[in-house]
């Protein structure tokens, strides 16, 4: 398979193609003729076709990517603004690989999920979704900080419109809040990126934004590094979102249309944690390893886990419940990243994937219910398992995966995060494990009040069960839930070199900045204590 793909030159064109396909499709949609009804039909068809092609093109990466080969793969470098040291550089490692595949898998499903629910200004909606995809994929593959920033902004603006135009009742409030929060972070990040670009190597030399170049040659004072880390931290922490920068999330999730919620929760929340993995920690390891900063970040991560879970417990709105559960899950990712062991980082990557799959599926399911009854309130339902058994079965499976039941994807990621964190940060890991109890509490209680108990509201008696389109769009996610729970080894094998490199970069950078005292090795040999 790999040989065949390489013979096609797949490696040389796949990443630019992934960025261009959605843009081309967006252009086609804007040119579509006809009245509103016809344009709606043709726009969704074009979008679905484009996303399907996009997925099929990207899926080759799974085989073309070789974990044993060091360095960036499928990389493409083209000069862009040479006088400022800016280039169009893209490439992937194992982390990018799985996140890109998560994105390309999710997008066609969101189109299917919006198939009937988005009718007003449908061409504009699908255009924005396509541009958004280019932005997200660009973030995951950018190897130039300037390009990264462009892609980052390219992804924020369409989402702002998607929430603001196709959202629920309080959509304006939610979209403005979303915009203010994320702009605040990303503007600070822009300043930091520019500062970094002008401080690579010799001060007299022209600026440079190449990622590898920065990793090896960036020279900033420790004080500057701390400020720069702070700027990146704020941008990414808002995006994660970490407690206490999370309050945009419940509003944005609740008000966004189904597709928006799925993309927000499934993919865009990973931008923050991806940013930590790719940029914030490797570029400023000395700041990231500062004991005070570490303690603060780990505390916020664990507080987020418990806080998100506790607040999810008392939500009357199911979408809000899922939103707060995201705060909790992403807390596990942050814990895993900052615990800096191979297992915890591998677990963090896996939780990112799992959260994308499970939460995406949860939002799709809520959306299906909302389309039928126009209510997201848990109290509006009850006993509907009796009338919509397929829906009930799938909601139960997805909830169990979100709870982290062994045998589903959720378990493997959280297990690795906690086990790995326990090696370096046992007390934080201990507290985080309590989150698993609360996760069971809030989700089981919610699905009980929706699916079980007496069917006491007459308007629910006529609910239609899932149709073939809905079953079809959920099937791939359910398959991933089981597959990643039973046999996650292929994913772990592909991400392990990148995770190991991340840990090494952070540790190594720290050691070179502080020669003594040496830190204990990341992978500790089993202690032989013959007392």
């Amino acid at each position, binding site marked *: 398979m790999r040989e065949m793909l390489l013979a096609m030159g797949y490696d040389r064109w796949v990443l630019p193609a992934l960025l261009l396909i959605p843009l081309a499709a967006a252009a086609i949609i804007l040119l579509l003729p006809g009245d509103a009804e016809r344009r709606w039909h043709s726009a969704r068809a074009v979008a679905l076709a484009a996303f399907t092609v996009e997925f099929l093109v990207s899926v080759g990466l799974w085989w073309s990517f070789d974990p044993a080969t060091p360095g960036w793969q499928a990389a493409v470098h083209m000069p862009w603004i040479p006088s400022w040291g800016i280039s169009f550089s893209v490439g992937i490692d194992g982390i990018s690989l799985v996140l890109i595949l998560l994105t390309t898998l999710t997008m066609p499903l969101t189109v299917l999920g919006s198939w009937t629910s988005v009718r007003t200004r449908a061409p504009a909606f699908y255009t924005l979704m396509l541009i958004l995809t280019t932005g997200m994929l660009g973030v995951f593959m950018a190897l130039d900080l300037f390009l990264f920033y462009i892609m980052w902004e390219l992804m924020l603006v369409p989402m702002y419109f998607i929430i603001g135009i196709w959202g629920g009742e309080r959509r304006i409030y939610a979209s403005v809040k979303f915009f203010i929060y994320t702009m605040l972070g990303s503007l600070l990040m822009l300043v930091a990126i520019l500062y970094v670009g002008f401080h690579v190597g010799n001060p007299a030399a022209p600026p440079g934004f190449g990622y590898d170049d920065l990793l090896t040659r960036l020279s900033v004072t420790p004080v500057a590094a701390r400020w720069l880390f702070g700027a990146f931290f704020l941008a990414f922490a808002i995006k994660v979102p970490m407690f206490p920068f999370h309050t945009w999330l419940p509003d944005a999730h609740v008000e966004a249309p189904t597709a928006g919620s799925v993309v927000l929760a499934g993919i865009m929340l990973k931008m923050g944690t991806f940013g930590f993995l790719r940029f914030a920690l490797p570029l400023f390891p000395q700041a990231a390893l500062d004991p005070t900063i570490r303690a603060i970040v780990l505390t916020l991560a664990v507080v987020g886990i418990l806080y998100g879970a506790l607040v999810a417990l008392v939500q009357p709105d199911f979408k809000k419940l899922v939103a707060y559960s995201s705060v909790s899950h992403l807390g596990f990712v942050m814990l895993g990243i900052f615990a800096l062991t191979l297992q915890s980082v591998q677990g963090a990557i896996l939780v990112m994937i799992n959260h994308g799959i499970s939460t995406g599926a949860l939002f799709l399911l809520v959306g299906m219910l909302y389309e039928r009854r126009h209510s997201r309130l848990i109290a509006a339902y009850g006993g509907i398992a009796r009338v919509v058994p397929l829906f009930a079965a799938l909601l139960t499976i997805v909830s169990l995966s979100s709870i982290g039941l062994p045998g589903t994807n959720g378990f493997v990621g959280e297990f690795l995060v*906690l086990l790995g964190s326990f*090696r370096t940060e046992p007390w934080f890991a201990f507290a985080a494990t309590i989150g698993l109890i609360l996760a069971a509490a809030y989700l089981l209680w919610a699905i009980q009040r929706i699916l079980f108990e007496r069917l006491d509201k007459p308007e629910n008696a006529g609910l*239609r069960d899932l149709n073939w389109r809905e079953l079809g769009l959920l099937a791939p996610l359910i398959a991933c839930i089981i597959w990643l729970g039973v046999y996650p080894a292929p994913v772990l094998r592909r991400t392990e070199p990148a995770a190991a490199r991340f840990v090494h970069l952070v540790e190594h950078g720290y050691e070179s900045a502080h020669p003594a005292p040496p830190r204990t090795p990341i992978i500790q040999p089993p202690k032989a204590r013959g007392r």
Partner: protein
Amino acid sequence: MIAPALQAAALAAAPHPLSGTAADWVWALPLFPLAGFLVNAALAVVAVARPGPADPSADRHSAPDATAAGEDVAGHGPGAGDADAPPPARHRFASVVSLVGPLAVGLAFALACAIFAAMARVHPTTPFVQTYFHWIPAGDLQVNAAFQLDQLSLTLVLVITGVGALIHLFSVAYMGDDPGYARYFAYLNLFVFFMLVLVLGASYPVMFVGWEGVGLCSYLLIGFWYADRANADAGKKAFIVNRIGDFGFLIAMFLLFVQLGTLDYTGVLAAAPGGLEAGGPVVTVICLFLLLGCAGKSAQIPLYVWLPDAMAGPTPVSALIHAATMVTAGVYLVVRSGLLFAMAPAASLTVAVMGAVTALFAATIGLKQWDIKKVLAYSTISQLGFMFMAVGAGAYVAGIFHLVTHAFFKALLFLGAGSVIHAMHAAYHATHSHEDAQDMRNMGGLRARMPVTWILMWIATLAIAGVPLFAGFFSKDEILGTIFDRAGGSILRDAHWLGIPGGVVLYAIYGMGLVAAFLTAVYMTRLMLYTFHGQNRTGEAARPHLHEAPWLMTGPLLVLGALSAVGGFLNTPAFLPIGPAETLARWLDPVVGPATALIAAGAPGDADPRRGLLLSLIAAAVAATGIVVAVVRLGRSAPVRAGAAPETGIESVLAHRYYVDEAYDRGIVRPLLAFSNRVLWQGVDGLIDGLVTLGARVWVWFGGIGSALQTGRVGTYAWALVVGALVVLAITIR
């Protein structure tokens, strides 16, 4: 890391004696029930699923009839007691399901027997490990999907598949009229699958898959008739309380990995003696966290509260999951980790104390329950307490022995109760009565109408009460006897528990065990007297409808009755001259021998055989006294009618189960919800939002100043320019 690698190399060099025998098929054991689950689940889905039209927006027809579209789960099975539900209709695929469900477990049992034959021939001294694929490989953590076959896991497999197959057969008749028939068997098959994974897993993480998996099935089956809120609540409660225990299990795994670098049994066994300090704090903490897991799964204090509520599930489920198999998983975990517990005497004593307190506590509650299943539920908690007393005292064989005999007689008791409830329910259903079919105050005199059930229930009662020669006598006697021995000499005697010498603790536990055994005989006799003897209180109209269960239900009861009668001969004590002595002990020795030897170190050489006999006589006398006391007391007082005057004083406290549920609800659940709602969500989130809004306002205000300046009048701009220039000049020129 080195030790298991070496061991693996050694295994590879010399083939295990079991390879090439039926044991090679161990992977197929859980696959039978898994296949059964897939078939039954598919049938359940096909029977109820009616996917809507491709495009919901195009569907403008009237809503489909709700009751026809969905599987009717209003709870029409026996025990659900809903007289308003539509008449029962057999499931569309009932005949296929009736075949597939029991057959899947039956085939697994047949294979288990074949493996047993092979193992009995070879009697291997090392475990037979089969590795299938890398499950979680991450650096130096390598968790494989692997099964481990040894005498311990095979014993459990035989109980699970054997008793499981009987209960599946019973269910065919018991659940036959339930609309959710296929769903029921799907869950039951899935449970057997996870239970087999639990006992066969070769490492703690694989065991954990089964551990949480059986919890899931328990959740689904407790809430099987989910239309009733109480049932759904009970399922959720079981899952969450179990999760608290699982938290302990996880922490124990993390500690084990950090300390020993491995999580599979062979690796831990090899690395523990060198990697952990015997009696040290680390191994003690690990064992205590494991114990938390056991307390959740096996319903021990303080996490026992879910099991009585779990009786909301169908009665065969109570027999299989909440009596015979799943709830004993905690006992299995302690025995599986026996070496660790033997290295931590303080933790072992904690296990024994927890068991003893639970055994006594639950037995007292059992005295005052009126729901026949609730009596059996508290009885199960109490008997599990006996098992933990045993394994805590390092009597691993006795613990497993009681696990096996308990599986026989408690499954029989639950199924017998099921057959009674089935009859009561049918009688009340025929007469459209709303009386409680499970309340013993509505029973009485049933022996005339259900003679087979009556006799078999008495056999089980004599077994659980510990009447000599019945199954429970030998196992309970061995537990109490071994605890007495350990108190006389063992590393536990020399250890301390909260400052109290271990010997004192063990003698106290022995005493509590005797009292609990006495109470067991009392509450079981009470149950039998109220249910089967005296005047019938079912009601004039309903009485003629009471009848014996069909043969498909009494058949499995007969087999379990035989096992309850003679199961004790699996492991007769050496001092009794009946049959080959201590068969089970010799069988399990390769697995539990080292840990037992470690814990029994320092015991006086040959125990006086007369002492063993004396202890047995004491135990028998206690059982007999309990039965006599119950007969004498209840024989004199008139049977209580349902809805009679409430009990007072200590009786009321017992009837309300010491108000523990209420205390948990008021002390933990409600405050947590209120805190999350008021303080966190409305408080903290509101505060953050307020700050953000305030920040935004400030910027809007700045923006307002800016836009106010944009008047568009050139004159104003010119003035501003001049003033600005003057200000700049004033600042810069000095």
